[in-house]
């Protein structure tokens, strides 16, 4: 199966430092890749790089979308792809929608641009999209403003906006983090339904391993700007290979297991972008390093081999 999107050795550098260093992944039609990480792990930075949305950063490496290299592509070429063949939805739907334009105008805007549609046709299309994402009485609501919708409905509007040009790739950056849990369930169902109907490739970026377990076929775990583990979802959850993945899974509170007891926390804090630790970026918090205090962990950055970046593969399970 040829990949729709192939990212190889991506590196994103800001004036303040390198936020992403050595990220590679692929996305396939009809499948969902989950990218998991805590704040500062580089998961959002990577996806914004795919969309070509970094303005004050140096993006290196390779991003091949449907056979076309995007790193170094002209801004006009990237604009032609953005919103038409690849789309993105964001964490906070309220601030991600323009407060002064009706949702209909905002959905129609991209369609008019990319599909060269008339104002009237684009408006009809917006009504159709609102209906598709499950907004009741779409013909009336198309003229409403974002503040007149609830949080869940706004995220549906964002999804309608992202899908208006039938993209092949949908990047969802923490799409449910700002929403309540019952609304989160609705939105995840909707994304799943859309994927089944339209066969889009989905990249789901989240800090919530539960969300990933629900939707992802494949999971990439990121830490300190680089992937530490990348494997099919079941494998990541059942037999995590990296001590960070293991630690993350153990630290999640589980109400279904009875709760009550203390949690297995990972000591310390995530590394800073400005002064990342030498060697393996996870070693200051790593139980393997604490136990064996292997010098190599503190001096040498582990290579990413067979879906794992660890000097002691297998020690975590």
């Amino acid at each position, binding site marked *: 199966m040829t990949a729709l999107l192939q990212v190889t050795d991506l590196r994103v550098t800001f004036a303040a430092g390198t936020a992403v260093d050595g990220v590679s992944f692929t996305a396939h039609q009809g499948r969902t890749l989950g990218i998991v990480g805590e704040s500062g792990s580089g998961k959002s930075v990577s996806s914004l790089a795919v969309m070509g949305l970094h303005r004050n950063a140096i993006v290196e490496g390779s991003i091949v979308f449907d056979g076309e290299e995007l790193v170094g592509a002209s801004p006009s070429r990237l604009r*032609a792809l953005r*919103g038409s063949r690849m*789309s993105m939805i964001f964490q*906070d739907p309220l*601030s*991600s929608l323009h*407060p*002064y334009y009706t949702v209909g105008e905002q959905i129609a805007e991209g369609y008019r641009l990319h599909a060269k549609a008339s104002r009237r046709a684009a408006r009809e299309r917006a009504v159709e999209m609102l209906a598709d994402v499950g907004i009741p009485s779409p013909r009336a609501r198309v003229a409403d*403003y974002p503040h007149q919708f609830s949080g869940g409905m706004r995220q549906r509007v964002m999804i309608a906006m992202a899908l208006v040009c039938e993209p092949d790739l949908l990047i969802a950056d923490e799409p449910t983090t700002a929403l309540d849990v019952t609304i989160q369930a609705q939105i995840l169902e909707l994304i799943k339904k859309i994927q089944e109907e339209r066969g889009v490739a989905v990249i789901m970026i989240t800090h919530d391993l539960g969300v990933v377990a629900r939707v992802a076929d494949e999971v990439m775990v990121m830490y300190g700007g680089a992937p530490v583990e990348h494997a099919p979802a079941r494998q990541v959850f059942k037999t995590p290979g990296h001590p960070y993945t293991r630690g993350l899974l153990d630290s999640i509170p589980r109400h279904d297991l009875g709760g009550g007891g203390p949690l297995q926390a990972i000591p310390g804090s995530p590394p800073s972008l400005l002064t990342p630790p030498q060697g393996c970026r996870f070693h200051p918090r790593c139980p393997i390093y604490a136990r064996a205090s292997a010098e190599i962990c503190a001096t040498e950055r582990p290579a990413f081999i067979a879906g794992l970046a660890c000097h002691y593969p297998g020690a975590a399970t």
Partner: protein
Amino acid sequence: MILYLGKRVLAVAGVLLVICAVTFTIFYVLPTDPAVHACGKTCSSEQIALVRQEMGLDRPIHEQFAAYVSGIAAGRDGCAFPCFGYSYQNSLPVWDLLTDRMAVSVSLALGAALLWLTVGVLIGVASALRKGSALDRTLMAGTLASASVPVYFTAMILLLVLVQYLEFLPYPDYRPLTEDPVGWATNLLLPWVTLASLYAAMYARQTRSSMIETMGQPYIRTARAKGLHERTVVTKHGMRSALTPIVTIFGMDLGGLLAGAVITEHVFGLPGIGQLTYDAIFKADQPVMLGVTLLAAFFITVANLVVDLVYAGIDPRVRYA
């Protein structure tokens, strides 16, 4: 909407009445005796007492105030509506003095406003989009300098260079727009530039910070993610929000200037309301001062109302309530 408008108009009337009462009281308790001013230096005390009686100054303050307000609202004997009383200096109706000079002040304010709004917003947007660049730093240093220089200094420099040495422009001498449009513009150009240079600097700085904030908003990222051209992102999505706060201050600034730019008018000798104010203060011409104060209050409160209405038109989240 109608109800809202009605409420707001009533509120404006209320505010004006309060301002009127406060100003009236202040002038009443002032130690200067208007009758002395009105009568002249050679008057005897009997003559002054007669004048005082004629002017109604011997009546209690609330009666005087009631007479004043009803004069404005409906006119009073011998003084046509709206009656703001008569100037102590030349016994002309204050209202006529105000209307005669209004055209000058309005010409000055509107022309300058157009200039500073255009220049200020352009500088602000350009600066914001190239934040941290040499262009941004140069523009911001320039606006800081421009905002720090007093109006009379700018005016003097401009007069000296453009009028005196280069003889590029005539010395400002007001011509009515209806009689001589070209003369009107060329003669007002210098005052416009002087006034605008101060305001444009402030507007540039406001626009810049507002624009920087807006361009960092997530919905700008959404607009880019749609594949829109950066030009569209900046104008349609960025400036629309960034200029909303500018509308507010613009309304207030313009409202304040319509009732006269005292220093600018004085420096250029323009016969506007600012000049009238200047003279009235030095001659203790209380009816004129009172009239000018009320006119200024009227413009500012009305500008405030207009701004609120415009705001609701721009931002759909604002509703009349």
